């Protein structure tokens, strides 16, 4: 069945015009896994924010950051490409609230919430500057997550032009979210708090859109001109959750809604054929 399901997913992706697709799923109820190109690297887009969330809670847990700490919100970041400053563009950001705090301070937990729930680029970069890339990589390493590679803050166009990007695999994101769902990411309490943040997600046109109405999903999307991703923990009634990551790559200038619909369609297919084991 798994082989047929994989073929059907690839057919869906091909019909939608995706140039590449990768899927990884892990059912926490029985430990079964599904993998399709699960170790292929993709540009991470905003899915990398889950790694920043992990590192933030890791720093709090290790006592390196006070949990009620406030941090100065500045829209000034150093490009990894040439060490010159750059700003993130409010018109390309999913969140306006954080821009209202420029020049002032915000609580780090509030920044984390904006970073995940509405994918605030500004909140992300403020936290990345606070934590530092090394600390984020160290947190991933401590968790043994290999398929999530953090290099830099988001919207660093000069780094992008230089080919310096954050990367993820479907297997990597699934592993990271599995640890969050199982309470082993940093600590049980930290995992629980991270899960609550992810469950508040407002972008629900990917994995959640392929599921029965009312299904709780702790997910994080990622979208730039050439990739559309979603990865999350799915909570169906009366069963243990499962983790799913769907990563897609596209030629530029495509129809965004069609791209998200592909992820929703794959989510539905995985629910029916992998989780519920209905025949195709």
């Amino acid at each position: 069945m798994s082989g047929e399901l994989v073929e059907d997913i690839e057919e869906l992706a091909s019909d939608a015009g995706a140039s590449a697709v990768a899927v990884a799923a892990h059912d926490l109820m029985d430990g079964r896994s599904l993998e399709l190109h699960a170790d292929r690297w993709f540009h991470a887009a905003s899915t990398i924010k889950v790694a920043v969330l992990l590192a933030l809670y890791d720093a709090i847990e290790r006592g390196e950051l006070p949990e009620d700490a406030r941090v100065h919100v500045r829209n000034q970041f150093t490009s990894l490409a040439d060490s010159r400053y750059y700003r993130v563009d409010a018109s390309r950001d999913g969140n306006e609230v954080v821009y209202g705090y420029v020049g002032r301070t915000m609580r780090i937990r509030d920044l984390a919430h904006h970073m995940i729930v509405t994918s605030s680029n500004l909140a992300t970069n403020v936290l990345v500057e606070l934590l530092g890339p090394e600390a984020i990589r160290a947190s991933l390493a401590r968790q043994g997550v290999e398929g999530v590679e953090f290099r830099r803050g988001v919207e660093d166009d000069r780094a992008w032009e230089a080919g310096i990007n954050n990367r993820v695999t479907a297997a990597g994101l699934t592993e990271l979210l599995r640890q969050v769902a199982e309470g082993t990411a940093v600590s049980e309490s930290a995992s629980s708090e991270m899960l609550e943040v992810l469950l508040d997600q407002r972008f629900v046109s990917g994995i959640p859109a392929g599921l029965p109405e009312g299904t709780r999903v702790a997910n994080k999307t990622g979208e730039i001109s050439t990739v559309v991703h979603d990865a999350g923990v799915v909570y169906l009634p009366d069963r243990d959750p499962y983790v799913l990551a769907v990563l897609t790559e596209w030629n530029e200038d495509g129809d965004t809604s069609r791209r998200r619909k592909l992820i929703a369609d794959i989510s539905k297919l995985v629910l029916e054929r992998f989780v519920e084991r209905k025949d195709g």
Partner: protein
Amino acid sequence: MADGVRGLKVVDGLELPRPYREALRPGELVRDAAGRTVQLPRYFYEVASWEKALETELSPHFGAFEFLDIDLREAEPLRAFPRYLPCAVVPFAAVLERFRDAVGGPVRIAANGGYRSPSHALSQDTSPHLWGAAADIYRIGGEYLEGADRIRRYAELAQRTVPGVWVRPVGDGVGGAFDHLHLDLGYVTLVPRAKRLKEPE
């Protein structure tokens, strides 16, 4: 020990408890970027609470709270009240008042952009922020200071209208101002006159 300003008590930093002395390093000699020896402030206004900071005007349009808005990069003892402001902050507020008159509207000081102690994580160099004699201005009226043109326009205005003020060059590299206008008066220290214990006969 000395007269205060607008209800704030003046304290000798050398007489503060050890955690504060270690963070504030009162009266310590340090070297500036040019290798010159300069002395860190020794006398401070003590601000008992955030409410006190909010209600205390250092000048008609600048409150003590604007110089005390810091984040977790400040040394831990200095993130809780009572907090301390070098006495030069009062004449510097008067300088900012002059700048406010020139721009014709509210001038907003950024977090970490007022007073920073020598132990603040952003205090690697001997910035006049350590003397309470500098401000990073991020907004003037409703205008955020983003982009070289805006910052340069206000920088030129400051240099024309505020005698003795130093303005950090605009730039998008380390050491340049990219999201704020930095103004300072240099390493200004102020030793307030003490109240006489007994009037002369």
